[in-house]
């Protein structure tokens, strides 16, 4: 079916309006929301025009049905968190008010900053998942990315337009190299990547203090132990403030790189032959092998790309926000990346939103801990519960079946006398 000219113009208008509006929203220009809404309305109109009345209602109904489980799951997890808070002597209403005010309004820029590295690690985990592999060591690849960026950032003396891409490339290469160990072992010996990626991550984390000491963090000679020297200002990522003056002074363009990466990953997975092969191997190894796909090569490729993506997370965090490597090595980017990928069902574009959700929960949780004195570890419990509820599809079937039986029993009672 060919698009008639009117809908096509609507789509173009919606994108032209929506993309800058989204950018404005990310930079805490909240009036951008109106334009985002307008762009959504345009898309709805376009759908209605090109689908026709009946198909449109059906599509809306499908979309609502599909949204029911995520929305219900998140709401139930928040309720569960409230219950725990109430049982342990914290006021859930005050806490949640602080959480959402902090995460969505007051410290929205922190939410965006939190989401940036998570999008990358989420993509890394999702990419491996698509190939049927579990990269649970994204944290280690993140650190190797930070190390590569710091090492080069301290030494490279090139104009920013050359230096930044060079650092990104080097970081990606290091991430791929680190994940090359699990990849080769998997193909050569069959060693399960769950163990090897995790062990590589622990190894990198253990060795990181050596790197920090060697690059300016030696407590014997420096005033800032536990962190390297600052990388050259030349390689810092540009800030939103440079073109949007009211944006927060820490907000860097890393989020745009991350979103672009999500689109790129989607393109690779869905539109290239490599992506097709990766998904084929992830779906059914035997069938893929029968179809002439070299399962070993594809396995290596997906783990290497996954490692690259996770390392880009570290590079972006280093060049954009931290500008040095810290010894505080418990950031949890690996596990949070897994959560985000699982929650988005390994869909690269959905990862942008699940990462933002996680970013909001983290930023809001910190604000909540400061203002309402509720321990922000409750947020970790809520996150885990969200995951649990959204991934256990069978729960809904069971609840549905249970409700169905209950209704059935009510209607058939007295007539057959049969038990359920």
């Amino acid at each position, binding site marked *: 079916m060919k698009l008639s000219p009117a809908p096509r113009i609507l789509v173009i208008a919606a994108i032209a309006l929506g993309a800058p509006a989204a950018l404005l929203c990310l930079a805490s220009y909240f009036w951008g929301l109106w334009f985002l809404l307008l762009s959504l309305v345009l898309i709805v109109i376009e759908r209605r025009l090109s689908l026709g009345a009946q198909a449109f209602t059906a599509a809306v109904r499908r979309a609502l049905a599909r949204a029911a489980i995520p929305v219900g799951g998140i709401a139930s997890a928040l309720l569960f968190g409230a219950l725990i808070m109430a049982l342990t002597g914290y006021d859930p209403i005050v806490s949640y008010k602080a959480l959402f005010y902090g995460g969505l309004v007051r410290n929205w820029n922190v939410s965006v900053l939190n989401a940036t590295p998570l999008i990358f690690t989420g993509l890394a985990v999702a990419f491996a998942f698509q190939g049927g592999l579990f990269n649970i060591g994204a944290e280690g690849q993140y650190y190797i990315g930070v190390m590569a960026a710091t090492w080069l950032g301290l030494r490279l003396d090139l104009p920013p337009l050359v230096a930044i891409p060079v650092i990104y490339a080097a970081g990606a290469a290091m991430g791929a190299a680190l994940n090359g160990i699990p990849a080769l*072992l998997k193909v050569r010996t069959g060693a399960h990547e769950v163990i090897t990626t995790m062990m590589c991550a622990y190894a990198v984390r253990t060795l990181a203090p050596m790197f920090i000491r060697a690059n300016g963090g030696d407590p014997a000679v420096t005033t800032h132990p536990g962190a390297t020297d600052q990388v050259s200002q030349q390689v810092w990522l540009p800030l939103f403030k440079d073109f949007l003056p009211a944006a927060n002074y820490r907000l860097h363009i890393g989020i745009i790189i991350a979103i672009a990466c999500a689109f790129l990953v989607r393109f690779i997975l869905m539109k290239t032959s490599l992506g097709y092969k990766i998904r084929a191997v992830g779906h059914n190894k035997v069938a893929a092998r029968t179809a002439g796909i070299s399962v070993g090569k594809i396995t290596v490729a997906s783990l290497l790309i996954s490692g690259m993506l996770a390392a880009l997370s570290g590079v972006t965090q280093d060049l954009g926000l931290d500008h040095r490597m810290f010894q505080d090595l418990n950031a949890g980017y690996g596990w949070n990346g897994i959560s985000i990928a699982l929650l988005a069902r390994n869909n690269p574009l959905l990862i942008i939103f699940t990462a933002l959700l996680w970013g909001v929960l983290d930023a809001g949780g910190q604000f909540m801990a400061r203002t309402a004195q509720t321990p922000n*570890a409750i947020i970790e419990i809520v996150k885990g519960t969200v995951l649990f509820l959204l*991934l256990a599809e*069978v729960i809904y079937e069971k609840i549905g079946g249970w409700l169905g039986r209950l209704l059935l029993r009510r209607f058939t009672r007295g007539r057959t006398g049969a038990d359920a």
Partner: protein
Amino acid sequence: MSRLLADLFTPQLLGATVRLAAPVSLGALASVVCERSGVTNIAMEGVMLVGAFCAAWAAWLTGSPWLGLLGGAAGGVLFSLLFAWAAVSLHMNHVVAGAIMNILSFGITRYLMVVVYGHQGTSPSIAHSLQDYRLAIPFLSRVPFIGPALFDQTPIVYLSLLAAVLWAWIYARTRLGLSMIASGEHPMALETLGRSVLRVRYTAILLAGVLCGAAGAFLSIENADSFTEGMTGGRGFIALAANIAGGWRPVGALLASLFFGFVDAFQLRAQSLGIIRLPSEVFLVFPYVATILAVAGFVRKSRPPAAVGKDFTVEGNGE
């Protein structure tokens, strides 16, 4: 040189090997129990962490490290129940369910730290740890070299040694053991005989919960006297590797764990003697590298249970 080796390889090193192997070997046995019955359990790291917290908490509340051990095991079982529900009843992918359990365990222990003790980080010390109940078995502990290593130890270390031997016997001689092996190799066959795969797998996961809870208790109330956030340090995953290196057999897993214990003990000894001038991180990384080598080296020589990690439903023919 020989003087150096004599300094390094002392009976104390052997004793430390057996001692440091205990948490890994309990975890490895838990992994054997789960995988032989068809469940891939990467939740062990989280279960150990919850067990370690509950043990320190119970010991702190009651003043008795024995009740602490009980509390650790109970915490491990309760937390494992959630994993069993997810992986067996709700048919979630085992690795995914395990990852969620790990995420939950970090949150739960961090939250409970604040609720119980009012701060994050490390819990206050308990008055008596299980270290105070070291028991030298008469006569046996006098055997040169291996005597003090095997028969002059603390309670959970004995438990780790006994559990492996006991479990080997259960596999070889009992109906329960046979059911568990069948559940991992051919669950449909077990179901056809009228025994519930679901029940066998629940049993396996909960038993693993007891073992991991005890491993956690070792870390918090036997090897130390307090709980520290994230104190398991990847032992749940190392245990998984020990299970594979040991060929999915209880005694094999114990021997593989002793290897990891040795790596740990050697690392500590070499570091404290200062014979090799290297940053401490180089030594700390040993166990992780050893794990990678062990998984890579041994995995080909043995075969995993046929149905490990596969969801079982009667309608789906066990696939």
